[in-house]
């Protein structure tokens, strides 16, 4: 494994690819999640770019952080499985199944990340039934946005290790 040149450079490329995919999953997933949670009442681009709504930006950032953290937690188990499958160099046979598992792992990260975010927000909304958090944030209430963002990030930190263990099981370790 350590003296296989093709494995060295292919592993580097694959590692960079995984980081890139994690970022894409985090950003795209967060944008879709906000649209779903707000029932498309809030146009994120318009709020951030045109209205300079810091509250929306904070909440979006917390979503990206949480989902991105979940996606990044999948990278080590995926690389462990990568080296296990391709010890003597990358072979085409089995590569398709491996890529499928990688895709499954990323979707798992997105699913758990989205569930974590939704659960955090649900808890907050149940506690504060008299406040419509999204309307407040849309109206420019940065304080509510900060509370939401911190709650999402904290719950995400608790669930961070779950993703890693589940991906390890996915690859049969």
């Amino acid at each position, binding site marked *: *494994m*350590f*003296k296989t040149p093709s*494995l*060295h450079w292919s*592993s*580097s490329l*694959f*590692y960079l690819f995984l980081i890139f995919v994690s970022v894409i999953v985090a950003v795209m997933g967060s944008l879709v999640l906000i649209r779903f949670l707000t029932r498309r009442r809030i146009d994120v681009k318009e709020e951030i770019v045109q209205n300079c709504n810091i509250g929306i930006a904070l909440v979006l950032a917390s979503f990206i952080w949480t989902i991105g953290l979940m996606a990044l*937690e999948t*990278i*080590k*188990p*995926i*690389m*462990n499985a*990568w*080296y*296990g499958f391709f*010890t003597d160099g990358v072979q085409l046979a089995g590569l398709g199944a491996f890529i499928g598992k990688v895709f499954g792992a990323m979707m*798992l990260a997105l*699913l*758990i990340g*989205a*569930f974590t975010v*939704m*659960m955090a927000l*649900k808890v907050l909304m149940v506690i504060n039934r008299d406040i419509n958090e999204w309307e407040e944030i849309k109206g420019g209430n940065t304080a509510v946005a900060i509370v939401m963002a911190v709650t999402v990030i904290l719950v995400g930190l608790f669930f961070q*290790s779950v993703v*890693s*263990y*589940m991906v390890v*099981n*996915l*690859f*049969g*370790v």
Partner: protein
Amino acid sequence: MKKNCSESLVFSAFFLATLLVMSLFFAPAKGDTVFKPSWSSGFPSDKPDPIFKKKAYRWLEADGRLLETIFIFTDELLKEALESFGVQSVHRNNTSFLLRGGYKVVDRRHSIDRGSGQLTEHIRLCIDYNAVFLKFKEKMKSYAEGIATAVSLQTDKDPLLSFLTFVQQIPYRQPPDIFHKRYINGFFVPPLCLSEGYGDCDSKAVLLADLLTSRHQQEGRLGLALIDGKGVAHSILLIQRPQLPGMSSIYADNYGRFLPVETTAPGWNPGFLSPILVDLLKEGQFRFVPFE
């Protein structure tokens, strides 16, 4: 009201779907090892454990091949293995006997009793893993050759992955504190770990270290990381190999960079560990023991 109901329904459906997906991935681990020693695994409690002289091993190599080999243990080796480490069980609390039995002092503190003014010395002992490693690294040569022959390993090829696959599939079980009337504190020296067919984290780590050293000219140093923190007590082997993308590593002053190697469960390649252990290593909650 209707919006609240539909929102709750969506949330509940999403929650149930996630639970279903999670339950699929928390299924019992697939592919139990086929590592089956040739004797019965039960030991009668009222009879002394027999020392085995011959043992057949079957294990699954990384490429899917089912391999088999037979190890023979001479009386002299087993006797030496038994007597080289540990003390008679009656002396288990005697520091001087323990120091002669393969332990070393890792911490020494003094305290003074305020009432009587008496000075008391507190000594913390630990197994001298380096001494055990050095003692058996030549004696494990024939067993390393046996594994290499079974794997059809070329002479110039790094045996790390093959030996690691073998050791990981040795059943994980805590050795007894008392073994053949000797206090061994739950640690099997490498010949005993192989002859008994099971071992815990430190037993298997030292076994792998000796197999690697006896078969292959070392590319770099070996070491042991004794992790102790947050309720976790674990030992992992440290090896010096190039760090590939995604791998964790530890840097030890005066010794260089090491990759951690997990020996207790199949599927962990060099440089990869359970996330809990990675966190503990990052926090420095371990003691580094070089093999030299």
